[in-house]
């Protein structure tokens, strides 16, 4: 592999198809890195005792990609040794146990990629314009992340 092919890259994708952990990991693997850290957000079948049938996601796609790019830029400022960052988020219907988001980060040593992945998911939940609807048996509910500063705190 030529040196120029290993420049740090951000891989950001919003898609309605099933996400692949293999695909996302392979995007960030790098010969100069000894660590790849991953976060996978999966769909739970319950919320406060109610049975969840599936989740549905929608996004302000152009702005969501821009906000995720900003997160990547912040990651590189805080952890300069981070090599590649991949954020894949699914849109539309996500069945139970399937992934709604996969974040992967590579770095030479493990501390930076582990911390960067945590930062990515926490910041994504606070700033990226994506919305989740929980579908129950008899109704549905638009969810609100506690990280979202303009949501009313839970009454």
């Amino acid at each position, binding site marked *: 592999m030529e040196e120029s092919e290993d420049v740090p890259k951000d891989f950001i994708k919003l898609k309605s198809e099933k996400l692949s952990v293999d695909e996302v990991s392979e995007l960030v693997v790098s010969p100069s890195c000894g660590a790849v850290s991953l976060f996978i*957000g999966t769909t739970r079948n319950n919320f406060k005792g109610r049975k969840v049938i599936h989740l549905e*996601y*929608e*996004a*302000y796609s*152009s*702005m*969501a990609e*821009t906000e995720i790019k900003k997160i990547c830029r912040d990651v590189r400022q805080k952890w300069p040794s981070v090599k590649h960052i991949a954020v894949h*988020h699914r849109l539309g219907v996500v069945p139970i146990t399937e992934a*709604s*988001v996969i974040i992967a980060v590579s770095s030479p040593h493990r501390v930076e990629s582990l911390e960067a992945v945590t930062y990515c*998911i926490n910041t*994504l*939940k*606070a*700033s*990226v*314009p*994506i*919305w*989740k*609807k929980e579908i129950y048996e008899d109704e549905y509910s*638009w*969810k*609100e*992340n506690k990280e*979202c500063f*303009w*949501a*009313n705190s839970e009454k």
Partner: protein
Amino acid sequence: AVSVLYFARSAELAGLRCETLSVPREITSLQLWEEIVKVHPRLAVIRDQVIFAVRQEYVLLGDQVLVLQPGDEVAIIPPISGG
């Protein structure tokens, strides 16, 4: 005229996802909200839970003066729940 985009709960209450709206070139974000609610009164119930994204930058509903150009995107942003 600006493009107004509706998402999530706001799209359900307004009954649509996007439309063109004529508004004054300079307007506070709160006044912009009030113009939109005139067209879609059902949106009033979520006033305390939404912010705007104007040209893809978040803006609170309040006294901030917006300078809008024709074709600018203004999005209604209910509380987010990505991830």
